[in-house]
């Protein structure tokens, strides 16, 4: 078919139209942005300003563990100056809890405080009513902390073990989880005894909240899920463990010693130690701060921060850090007392900051 000029023109026009109507790609040219994390304020030694990204300053985010409790932390640091802030976890007795929701809703958190006074006591006498025990070695997180009597100074979740030596030189070790210095939302203890028929009778006693489920273990073997336990046992010492779930979602594990020989070597769980702890303010979701400046370290924990103030003005998700955990950008105005580690002198820190805190 012979093409004439009109066809040629039409083809050219169609080609140009097609060419110009092609999908255009876009190029995302990176743009500079404003600093994300920074702190500006004053303290002993003068004003300061530190910006993550300038002068080798970096915003480190991590979750530390302190006495078995998570501390959601961020540390803004360069070569000469660093500020660290941590938020303690809370609601420790719940199986699952959303720390973020509580942190975000608490616009005026309090500063954590600690001193050199014990907040809990582990005492043989509180377990051994019948004087059948000659000695108890106390282990806290696998560390021997005392014989017959030991003390706990810091809030936390501890695995406390008692190596018990009876008067007949028989021994047994049993361990309980203790929550010290944090609020507990349910409490209870195991009540047990072995009758003359050699039957173990056990139940949950003193529950402050309705118990929804109990799993019984005898010498680490599951034996029952009944609220009341009644079964024959062999004539020897046994560790009776109860995993108790309360209706409000709290879950606790208690371990007691039952004696199947009728020699009355029964020992209760460690609930008594939680109940007798010093009633300091709980540390749930408290804040701590520390500063390193000019080679000196300053801490908020030992200082008197009863009148200090922290005002959270905003909290929002930023992005995951290199560990893959979510990081939240926390903006706050802070006025806090810090104690220098060597001189123990307290000095105020006032600053506004935007910090990154990892909250898994």
């Amino acid at each position, binding site marked *: 078919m012979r093409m004439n000029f009109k066809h040629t023109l039409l083809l050219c026009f169609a080609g140009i139209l097609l060419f110009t109507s092609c999908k255009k790609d876009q190029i995302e040219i990176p743009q*500079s942005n404003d600093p994300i*994390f920074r702190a500006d304020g004053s303290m002993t030694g003068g004003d300061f300003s530190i910006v*993550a990204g300038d002068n080798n300053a970096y915003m480190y985010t991590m979750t530390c563990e302190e006495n078995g409790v998570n501390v959601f932390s961020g540390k803004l640091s360069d070569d000469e100056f660093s500020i660290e802030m941590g938020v303690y976890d809370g609601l420790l007795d719940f199986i699952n809890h959303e720390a973020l929701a509580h942190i975000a809703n608490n616009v005026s958190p309090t500063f954590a405080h600690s001193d050199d006074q014990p907040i809990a006591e582990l005492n043989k006498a509180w377990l051994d009513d019948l004087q059948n025990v000659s000695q108890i070695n106390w282990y806290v997180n696998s560390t021997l902390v005392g014989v017959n009597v030991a003390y706990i100074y810091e809030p936390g979740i501890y695995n406390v073990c008692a190596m018990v030596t009876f008067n007949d030189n028989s021994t047994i070790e049993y361990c309980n989880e203790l929550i010290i210095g944090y609020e507990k939302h349910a409490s209870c203890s195991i009540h047990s005894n072995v009758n003359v028929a050699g039957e173990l009778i056990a139940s949950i006693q003193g529950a402050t909240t309705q118990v929804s489920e109990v799993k019984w273990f005898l010498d680490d073997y599951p034996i029952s899920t009944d609220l009341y336990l009644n079964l024959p046992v062999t004539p020897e010492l046994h560790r009776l463990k109860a995993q108790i779930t309360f209706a409000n979602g709290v879950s606790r594990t208690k371990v007691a010693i039952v004696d199947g020989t009728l020699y009355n070597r029964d020992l209760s769980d460690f609930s008594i130690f939680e109940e007798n702890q010093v009633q300091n303010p709980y540390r749930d979701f408290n804040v701590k701060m520390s500063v390193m400046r000019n080679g000196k370290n300053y801490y908020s924990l030992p200082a008197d921060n009863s009148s200090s103030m922290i005002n959270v003005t905003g909290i929002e998700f930023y*992005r995951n850090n290199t560990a893959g955990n979510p990081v939240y950008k926390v903006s706050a105005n802070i006025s806090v007392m810090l104690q220098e580690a060597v001189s123990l002198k307290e000095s105020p820190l006032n600053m506004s900051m935007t910090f*990154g805190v990892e909250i898994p």
Partner: protein
Amino acid sequence: MSWTDKEIDKLFQKEAAKQTFEYNDAYWKEMEAMLPASKKGDYLWFLTSGIFIALLFVTPFMGVLNEGKSAEVKAMEENSIEPMQIAENSINSNKVVKNSNKINGLDGSLTEIKMNNSKTENHSVDDQNNSQVSENKDATLNHFKKQNVTPFVAKQNSSISSVLAVVNEEVITENDQVRVQVESEASLRENASLLNVNKEELFPEAGDVDDLELHDVALLNTRSPLDLQSISYDLSLPWSTSFYVEANAGLGQSLITPSVNNSHYLGAGVGTQFRKGRIVFTTGANFIWSHHKDLQLTRQAKIYGFGSEVVQSHINYSELYRIEANLNVGYSFGRHNLNIGIRPSYLVGTKVKVTQDEGLEGGNRTVYGFTEGINRWGLKPSFGYGFDISRNLTLGVNVSTQVLTSVNEDFINGVNNKFPIDGQIYLRKTLRLRK
């Protein structure tokens, strides 16, 4: 406390040794504000270009209006025996008949001779010319017969034939054969109306063929191409239109400075030529595919996060695609043509090579259609020369300069080159349309 020179020097060296600086977009905006406002004079270019374009598009319609007056013109032609006007209409075979009649009617006594050329209406122009030449020859012979100059017919016929042969050759090379042919014939007849030359002098009894040829050639050569009277004369002639296709290539200075690179391009397009006598108006459109090596953008950004990172992006505009109009007016003399005009252009696309630091989306890739760094509109005044290497083929060169800023300096490393010059060579084929 005053600074000592040593302290000042130390402070200076300390600050100068810092490897990083804080990027602040506000600094660039401040610098931008300090720059003199540009592009104020652009409207003059657009105004003059608009007028030029308007003239180019309006004048063909004026030609149409002229065609509407053809009857009147014909009457004037017949009355005044204006050979050049007649010649321009000679593509029409009917006008060839008229021309023949005029030739025969020089003395007003041979009008009864009719050349039935109506059958040749669908013939090509060459055919028409050939038939016209033969008709003219026949008519002239008849004229001599009527004038009882038989003894000289053969010689006279041969001399006319030789003149017409020369003319025909000119016809082929001028690509407007009919016009020039009849123009020469008209020259033969200017004796009667314009030059008051006695027809016996033009067609002497003694058959002075050499005089006849010299006179004819003299008439042709004494018309200077640059003669204003001739130009106005050309403008009074009717329009003829032709279409063409064109391929071109060019080499130009870089669009930015400083640069050691040139740009080169290839193009193809179509257009229309409107001819009025020796004056030729051209309107066309070309697709231009240009290659560049120095249209690069390097963008550095400091991106803050947990720390900060300085990232770089390199964007290289390697190819530009434009639609370029070709609007010019030219003057033909013989095989040669000089023209001036403008070439407005519009950027329709680009080919961009992107290189970005690792970690950024994209990496190394090729992107089409990213036009943010290049100004879409361009305008080039140009002048050129064309040479008809055959009847339908023209080879020419154009020299032009870009008067509008070509690049967005925010996106390109460098500044706009003021009036970059480019040269273009083109090969143009005139299309002969058939219905």
